[in-house]
């Protein structure tokens, strides 16, 4: 019903000073039969307009839970946010009413999910589902909404959009379905898109098409993009900066080139060494020993210490903060941080 301009988020506040999105010391926990699973334990990051932040992590690292908390789609209970702030253009969304958040969700912040087939409703046509955005948020008539849906499908390069608008999700291929998901996220021209493993379910040739489309549209609309993935390759292709997560914490942040060239955390370093390369045949792969921790029993001190080759007693007792990373001569490295007591040794060898 409401037009975008009347939504509570102040408009111009963002561009200078206030970032588009700022997550501050976010904690999320789940109450399970086995105890309290601490999925997110103090995450901080910011995203600006036109910027791509990649959140990299393995399953259970808390990357998706953080995204769900931002979107406000966490299941609560069993989920709980005991602490933290999520500032969208300077306003804490966790303090907003349900009504206020609903106006932001979809219109200002949109999300693209991994599995397009299970994210689309199988009993409604694609055009109806795309048009729903306009009917609900903008109050358009059915006919106008359908026209908008065709326009959107065109924009994400679905061939013969006008004919296919009344088709159902199962009639589209995986890549096409993911394009429809992207179209849906773009519908109301949001300021921020959260893409949770958007190409994991797709084949490589289609994955390249979809990532290119996403990057192109992001540039066109100057949107912020949070790309959540476990794939170090996809990240290298599109991200500006990277946050690596492990056991609910950010263990390293860096601009994309820096991270691959000179990782400052043993976990990142291990990950980079453990993936085989396409362009050369390597020797035996480096394997990080052990398993990611159980979130109900995260090790004391640094959560990575049982798997870390250089762990000491300090690592086993004291949780490392995200230290700013500098050159050997103390020169600052912009945007870099590492939650390792021994980041100097890791970075400088």
């Amino acid at each position, binding site marked *: 019903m409401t037009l975008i301009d009347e939504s509570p988020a102040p408009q111009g506040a963002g561009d200078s000073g206030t970032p588009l999105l700022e997550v501050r010391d976010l904690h999320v926990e789940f109450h399970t039969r086995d105890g309290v699973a601490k999925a997110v334990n103090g995450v901080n990051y910011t995203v600006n307009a036109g910027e791509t932040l990649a959140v990299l992590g393995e399953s259970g690292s808390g990357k998706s839970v953080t995204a769900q908390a931002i979107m406000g789609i966490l299941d609560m209970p069993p989920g709980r946010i005991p602490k933290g702030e999520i500032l969208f253009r300077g306003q804490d969304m966790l303090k907003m009413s349900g009504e206020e958040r609903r106006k932001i969700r979809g219109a200002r912040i949109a999300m693209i999910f991994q599995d397009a087939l299970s994210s689309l409703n199988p009993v409604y046509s694609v055009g109806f589902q795309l048009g729903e955005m306009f009917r609900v948020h903008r109050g358009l008539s059915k006919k106008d909404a359908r026209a908008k849906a065709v326009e959107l499908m065109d924009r994400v390069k679905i061939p013969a959009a006008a004919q296919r608008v009344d088709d159902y999700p199962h009639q589209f291929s995986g890549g096409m379905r993911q394009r429809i998901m992207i179209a849906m996220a773009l519908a109301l021209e949001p300021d921020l898109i959260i893409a949770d493993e958007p190409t994991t379910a797709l084949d490589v040739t*289609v994955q390249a098409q979809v990532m290119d489309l996403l990057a192109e549209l992001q540039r066109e609309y100057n949107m912020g993009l949070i790309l959540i993935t*476990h794939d170090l*390759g996809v990240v290298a292709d599109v991200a500006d900066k990277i946050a690596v997560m492990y056991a609910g914490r950010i263990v390293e942040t860096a601009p994309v080139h820096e991270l691959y060239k000179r990782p400052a955390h043993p976990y990142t370093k291990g990950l*980079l060494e453990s*993936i085989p390369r396409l362009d050369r045949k390597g020797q035996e792969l480096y394997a990080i020993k052990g398993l990611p921790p159980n979130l109900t029993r995260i090790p004391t001190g640094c959560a990575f210490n049982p798997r870390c080759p250089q762990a000491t007693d300090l690592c086993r007792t004291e949780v490392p903060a995200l230290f700013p990373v500098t050159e050997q001569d103390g020169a600052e490295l912009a945007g870099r941080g590492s939650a390792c007591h021994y980041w100097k040794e890791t970075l400088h060898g």
Partner: protein
Amino acid sequence: MAELSKKNEPAASVDATPNVTGVEVVETGSETAAIEALQAPVDRGEPILQVRNLVKHFPLTQGILFKKQVGAVKAVDGISFDLYQGETLGIVGESGCGKSTVAKLLMRLETATAGEIFYKGQDITKLSGRALKAVRRNIQMVFQDPYTSLNPRMTVGDIIGETFDIHPEVAPKGDRRRRVQELLDVVGLNPEYINRYPHQFSGGQRQRIGIARGLALNPEIIICDEPVSALDVSVQAQVINLMEKLQDEFNLSYVFIAHDLSIVRHISDRVGVMYLGKMAEIGTDEQIYDHPTHPYTQALLSAVPVPDPEARENRERIILTGDVPSPANPPSGCRFRTRCWKAQDKCAQEVPLLAVPERFKGADTPAAHESACHFAEEKDVVHAA
């Protein structure tokens, strides 16, 4: 089905490629030797598995009471390859290209529509009963999803030990528990876990259980269908290393099916690229990755995101348009022509053979490997310019 085995005939006269054309060929020793010399500079001896013109069509039917066949999904449509003792043959391709069907055919979990699979010279597509059981002992499989391929109600000991119920000659009854514990130890699991259930293990550990089950009967060949794609990056490397170690230890031959091209390069000695039921290109890992000649291989390789941001500016990307056509109604001629930038009239009319392209024949270059393209030319897409 009859027209299928015929379609490759036009160039069957080319003498260097007799056993990989679609036509059934009775092999003579000299021919095989010639091909081996082309395919593999190292003498690998006799192939342990020879696949010849393998076809699997799944019928599409209409009607409820009187079913009549209205077409067929041509999942695998005439592929041939060899597997040698102790080597790893990687098979890559996108979803729907038929790579998993090949795995099932090799295991005889599906019955081939046409073609032969020779295991040590014996065609296993025709076997049944006791003879089939004996062969199956030597060809085992590791599945993709460690969460659904282990029975949640059975203990690890029962899951691995069950293989001995079917093949009791491998381990006598009193010896089974010890043998299972040995296997757990071999795959890097604590032998004391024998009484645990699958849900008590992580994904990587479950895949180790799957591997232990595959090893239980001392097979010669293990078919791995996407064995690490469900695992996290840090655990993937552990499982890959384990598989390589086991291969050395037991002289296993792997058919390694995966969609992740980097992992396939890492583990494979030779790689075959499949597209829509056909083999597009096959060669050593160096030939395929550093000197691909088929446009599909080139597009596939160029689309793989490389974990190196420097490379993103310097690499040529070939972005294919459109999706893979339906295997129920594949394009005429070359199946890739609808997405190929080189396609010409010839591609629509003539099925390209999987053979060393004419222009590279006899040349001493890594580009001289089998590629099913009329206009094959070498192009490095993996390395930054």
